[in-house]
């Protein structure tokens, strides 16, 4: 198939890129502590970019001769209709070897999801109902070829788990609803259930927080959704070129203890790959160094546009939902890779221990800050009061609201361990717990 597409594209265009992807998906759903759905799907497709004055793009998952020709024709036509752009596809460069494959998924994805689902069902205490659960494994092969002679192949696996854990006591029914992605199943062990079940049980006695301004510790996934989306948006070359970035290199934008890296090489990170979705080697790009904004990250388009080299940040990922199997359907976007926050020196216990009164937020309902202004308002799905340096009553409800550009300047502590995490708004992070001061809560 590769050769057929390549042959046809070469006939029509001088400057081109072909992105080919094939993914096997194995999935099992649990419904009320029983397996209720089993699926095996293979999805494959291709996206073609052509530069001929402007930039054209077209994609398809139909591999007939006529469909391939039509897809190329569409890409060529749009490249001639859109505004003229200076662009060149990246030339081949040596990329680093990175860890992106989970061998068990690669060997037998069907067995992995089946066994994982069975283990979960075996580990569930009698008083917990898995109202529904999804266990899904992706096994993808990606190939990028372009007119500059680039021909790169990569393989990656992904694993998704979503569970609705319900507990009922004395007529009160509560839920904890984790939804996580990882490259490997061992990074999401079934033993995590213990912590999630504890959170579910704590919901039974959770109280609505009071309205106040207080100290809040954000968990790794909430750090990712909050800081990740804001820092990610404003650190891109696209934001700089469009005049909407609030960051300037060399300026202090955050507390001195904050160092953030767009890390495309982190072992088994969700955005990790040897090369990005344009074939440019990924690397570690320091965004914020001890509170100082260092540099923007670029894809090929904005690199050329701003007279810079691509930093390997041309990544095909959705804006509204995470994309694993249909990356071929979208253009590469200028975005950060794994959002890595450098751990601090204090343990989480020490961070909590220093708080006289405050809150630890484990999960928000859905934290989606306004990327332009940094404003946010989100309901606490699961959290705890901290009183006199100790975790006290569980809390649920109430709105945490504020502005992340302001909060970044109010960081009073970062925990000493960063973990691979996925969010609801931003896919990939390696984040610690972060303590912010003076955060507004609208509750009772």
């Amino acid at each position, binding site marked *: 198939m590769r050769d057929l597409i390549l042959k046809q594209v070469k006939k029509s265009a001088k400057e081109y890129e072909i992105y080919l992807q094939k993914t096997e998906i194995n*999935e099992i*759903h649990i419904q*009320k502590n029983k397996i*209720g*759905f*089993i*699926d*095996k*799907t*293979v*999805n494959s*497709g291709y996206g073609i970019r052509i530069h001929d004055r*402007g*930039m054209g*793009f*077209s*994609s398809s*998952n*139909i*591999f007939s001769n006529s*469909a391939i020709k*039509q*897809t190329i024709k569409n890409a060529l036509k*749009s490249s001639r*209709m*859109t505004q003229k752009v200076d662009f060149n596809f990246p030339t081949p460069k040596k990329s680093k070897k990175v860890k992106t494959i989970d061998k068990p998924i690669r060997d037998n994805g069907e067995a992995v999801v089946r066994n994982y689902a069975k283990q979960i069902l075996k580990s569930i205490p009698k008083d917990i*109902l898995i*109202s*529904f659960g999804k266990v899904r494994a992706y096994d993808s092969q990606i190939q990028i070829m372009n007119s500059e002679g680039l021909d790169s192949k990569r393989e990656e696996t992904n694993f998704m788990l979503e569970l*609705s854990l319900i507990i009922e006591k004395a007529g009160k*029914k*509560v*839920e904890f609803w984790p939804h996580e992605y990882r490259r490997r199943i061992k990074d999401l062990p079934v033993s995590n259930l213990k912590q999630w079940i504890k959170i579910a049980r704590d919901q039974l006695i959770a109280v609505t927080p009071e*309205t106040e301004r207080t100290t809040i510790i954000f968990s790794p996934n909430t750090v990712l959704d909050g800081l990740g989306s804001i820092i990610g948006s404003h650190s891109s070359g696209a934001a700089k*070129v*469009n*005049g*909407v970035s*609030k960051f300037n290199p060399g300026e202090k934008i955050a507390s001195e203890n904050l160092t953030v890296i767009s890390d495309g090489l982190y072992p088994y990170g969700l955005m990790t790959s040897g090369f990005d979705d344009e074939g440019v080697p990924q690397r570690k790009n320091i965004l914020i160094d001890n509170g100082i904004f260092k540099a923007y990250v670029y894809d090929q388009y904005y690199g050329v*546009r701003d007279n810079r080299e691509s930093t390997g940040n041309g990544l095909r990922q959705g804006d*509204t939902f*995470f994309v694993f*199997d249909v990356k071929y*359907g979208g*253009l590469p976007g200028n975005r950060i890779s794994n959002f890595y926050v450098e751990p601090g020196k204090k343990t989480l216990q020490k961070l909590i221990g220093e708080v006289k009164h405050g809150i630890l937020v484990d999960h928000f*309902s*859905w934290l*989606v800050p306004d990327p*332009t*202004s940094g*404003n946010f*308002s989100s*309901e606490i799905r699961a959290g705890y009061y901290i009183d006199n340096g100790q975790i006290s009553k569980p809390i649920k*409800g109430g*709105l945490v*609201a504020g*502005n992340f550009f302001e909060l970044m300047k109010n960081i009073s502590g970062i925990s000493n361990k960063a973990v691979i995490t996925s969010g*609801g708004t931003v896919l990939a992070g390696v984040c610690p717990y972060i303590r912010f001061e003076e955060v*507004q809560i*609208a509750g009772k």
Partner: protein
Amino acid sequence: MDSRDLMEKIVRILEKTYYGDVRFETGRSFGIGKNKSEENINTASSIGLCIRVFSDNKWYYLGFNEFNEQKILDETKKLVRRVGNKPSKLVLKDPWETDTEIRVKKNHFDVDQDEKIKTVRGIFNRLTDNKKIINASVGLAHATSEVIFMNTEGSVLRQVLPYFKFVMSPIAREGDRVEYDFFVVAKQGGYELFTSIDLDKKIKDVINGSIQMLKAKVLKGGAHDIIVDPEVSGVIAHESFGHGCEADQVLRNRSYLAPLKGKKIVSDLVSMHDNSSLKGERGYFVFDDEGVKSSDTTLVKNGVLTDFMHDRQSAAFLNSDVTGNARAQDFSRKVFVRMSNTYIEPGDWKRDELIEETDNGFYLIKAMTGMEDPLGGNLQIVTFKAREIKDGELGELYKGVGISGKVLEFLDRVDAVTDNFEMRGSGCGKGHEDYVPVSSGGPYMRVRKAIIG
């Protein structure tokens, strides 16, 4: 490949199971996106085949986009042999046939691409012809989706649906402050949907909206009387209420509404529907992804919870009839109980009268995000902006706020509903994935003592 011939062969194999169906999807889309630094045209074509088997109360799926006929037939036979024909509970219907193509006045694909891109550039230039506007994004997109469906009941169905979306959003800057506003139309229909937009007015409004946001203040949270606009009403109907009415959630013991059917649960001013037969709206279809006819389901009538939305399985287990709400994102994803066009019925107040008769409070405008909480029944809505209401008049502009609290308590405090009514098209996920096209809407509503912040 003759898709109908292959589908008939598949159905003959599936007849050895309790129930089976096959869905063949093709799609074609075109989109233009423009901002200061990028101008893109994105075209796509897609194809997919989903085979479903129900046996022993479990669903088994196979999904393909590469059509090796022998391989598909072999895999289907293998699956049928493995799962057999075990007793199951599923609502079965009489066979029916349809072959429906939604007619449009002007097919988007017949409009010259040059004309479309010139139009988009013209709008972009007008949006940025203001010194406070530093950038703008304009998007014009359309798609056609064709589905052929056959099942072991003997139904043979085909529908072709046309989708359209237009969005524009200017970005304003003053000093360090950057703000924006947006205008969106997302419906089903032809190019006439675009030409009927009063662009002069909408461009002017959205530019003014963006510039005004530069002065918007941050609202201090607390309990206030509020008026929500039709967009916010719709998101409350969809996210906070509708997801709890999806009967698969009831079946999973995951809906706060499960024990409340037939009971008065909210203000008698509130009546709510999910209506997949509402032509022209983004959630319209002739039949759902289980081959069931679309319908208008009344979820709440004058404050009383009347019905849930069903697929074949939930209807069988809850002794109900199907409602035509079974939908999948595409051939590669599971069919779930999903909403279509969800709305709150209009009342008899006028919008201006409602504002005049509200002493103090906030008027919440446009919905940004909403998240479901089918078990807890909590509101998790973020609005785009708000205006203060002081002595019956609109005052200061504020940035968007969140709405929190229990949805039933919130809707019970509705004390006025207007006769103005609007729908807005969007996408809906079940949790964080499985997006399907929907619309939601309603009237302006006044709610007493709502928690916002």
